């Protein structure tokens, strides 16, 4: 009977893991809707294609090599050992003999991890929207999801050197979000801004998103999926302590997003004079990113504050990056990168085990590696096939050029800009 109880625990934790994985998988739809709502209609099919394809590529590449790189059998802390494909699952005997060490299915773990990779990659697609070649992006996705993300993930979560340095990042403000934003930044720097975004005399021109209900839906999907993202990162639910922890993570995740949204909305109202919906959406996402590095230890009120700070940061960061002529159509670098850094540092507010040094080491190592590795990959792709569509295609839209179809063929008007 004790064996049966262990089995039930194993089953509950596995099931919990799978439900969380479904929620995180759903975030792929969230990014897709968010991004397709924030770009112009003439580039919508392309960004849809990019998003569905990157999710699929992430799943395949992580199965082929990424997962094994991130959680390797061997490795020196910096460079993981290489192996391919997924192994078998735990046998009943192994589970019973493990004295609680083995408490969920390996494949459930893979399922949960694989949707994280896709998340990191989704971040990139928004930042390079409306001007990057589709296939160049997809080639980058192969390297990002198969190599770059897993290697730096190994450092923290695969018992690599950052884990040793005490870098603390519960669900990946740095490992997932800042990593994705860093790869995006490298791409954007090589790619340049969209035509017409920055005027000759330093003007910053607005390029309004074409479908704000879709963008809002995307935000809600992401918020919903984030319960799986953070909640699943507790990795266990089957006893009182872990169940309480998961509940706390849910509550804090929710409140941090709420704090971020309200702060960004009010701030935008004060600074810009109007209630900027897109800033509110980014504020909520900023709240989610901010709490991701430590959704467990803060009191709920502190969680709301951490999110609120994230929401404030994102408003200024979006405006600031524009000043630097770093063109990021959906604000991905601000939301996931700049706020991701804040999230990693905010761990220090409530988690006594984290150290400033550890957090800074983590940020530095992840940023440096992902930035350099991405830059190299982007540069090689640029040399080999080009990363930017030609001017005319950018003007008439990537949809026709890359996909041969329009997103809304019946009701998109010609635009003069």
């Amino acid at each position, binding site marked *: 009977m004790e064996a049966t109880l262990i089995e039930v625990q194993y089953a509950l934790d596995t099931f919990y893991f799978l439900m969380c994985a479904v929620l995180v998988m759903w975030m792929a739809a969230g990014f897709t809707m968010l991004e397709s709502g924030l770009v112009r209609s003439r580039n919508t099919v392309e960004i849809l294609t990019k998003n569905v394809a990157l999710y699929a590529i992430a799943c395949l590449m992580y199965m082929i090599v990424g997962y094994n790189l991130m959680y390797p059998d061997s490795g020196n802390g910096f460079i993981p050992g290489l192996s391919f494909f997924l192994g078998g699952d735990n046998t009943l005997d192994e589970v019973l003999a493990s004295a609680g060490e083995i408490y969920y299915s390996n494949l459930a773990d893979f399922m949960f991890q694989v949707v994280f990779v896709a998340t990191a990659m989704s971040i990139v697609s928004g930042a390079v929207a409306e001007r990057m070649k589709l296939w160049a992006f997809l080639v980058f996705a192969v390297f990002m999801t198969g190599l770059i993300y897993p290697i730096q993930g190994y450092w923290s979560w695969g018992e690599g050197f950052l884990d040793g340095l005490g870098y603390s990042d519960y669900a990946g403000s740095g490992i997932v979000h800042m990593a994705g934003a860093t790869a995006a930044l490298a791409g954007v720097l090589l790619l340049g801004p969209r035509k017409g975004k920055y005027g000759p005399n330093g*003007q*910053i021109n*607005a390029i*309004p998103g074409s479908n704000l209900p879709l963008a809002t839906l995307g935000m809600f999907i992401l918020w919903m999926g984030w319960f799986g993202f953070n909640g699943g990162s507790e990795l266990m639910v089957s006893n009182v302590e872990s169940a309480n922890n998961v509940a706390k993570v849910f509550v804090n995740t929710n409140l941090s997003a709420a704090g971020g949204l309200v702060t960004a909305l009010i701030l935008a109202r004060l600074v810009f004079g*109007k209630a*900027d919906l897109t*800033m509110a959406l980014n504020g909520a996402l900023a709240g989610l990113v901010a709490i991701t590095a430590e959704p467990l230890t803060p009191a709920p009120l502190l969680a709301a504050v951490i999110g609120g700070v994230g929401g404030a940061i994102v408003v200024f960061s979006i405006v600031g990056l*524009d000043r630097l002529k770093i063109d990021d159509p959906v604000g991905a670098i601000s939301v996931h990168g700049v706020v991701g850094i804040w999230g990693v540092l905010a761990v220090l507010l409530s988690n006594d085990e984290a150290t400033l040094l550890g957090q800074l080491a983590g940020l530095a190592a992840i940023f440096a590696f992902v930035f350099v590795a991405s830059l190299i990959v982007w540069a090689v792709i640029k040399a080999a096939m080009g990363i930017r569509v030609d001017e005319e295609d950018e003007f008439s839209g990537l949809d026709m050029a890359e996909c041969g179809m329009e997103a809304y063929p019946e009701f998109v008007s010609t635009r003069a800009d």
Partner: protein
Amino acid sequence: MKLITAIIKPFKLDEVRSALEQAGVQGLTITEVKGYGRQKGHTELYRGAEYKIDALPKVRLEVAVKDEELESITDAILASARSGKVGDGKIFVTSLEQVIRIRTGEVDEAAL
């Protein structure tokens, strides 16, 4: 015959239509257009960046009329389309050489 082309404010369309009906007009064609003029647009901020909405939505009306009706009909438009604020629009009149009703092949005044 004359072709009257009027640019009006969209929210005046219903009133203008009634006025035209009352003036005996049996048909008209409308197009959604944008206008630049003395009425200036407004500047908004989107994610902190400025954008000018300077082309304002207008409705363009085309009515073909008999010569003798021209004045009564332009008067009807003037009366109904006026709000008194800048941007009320214009009436343009050009000469119409020929009109044909496609269904019947009737021409000119009979086709109106």
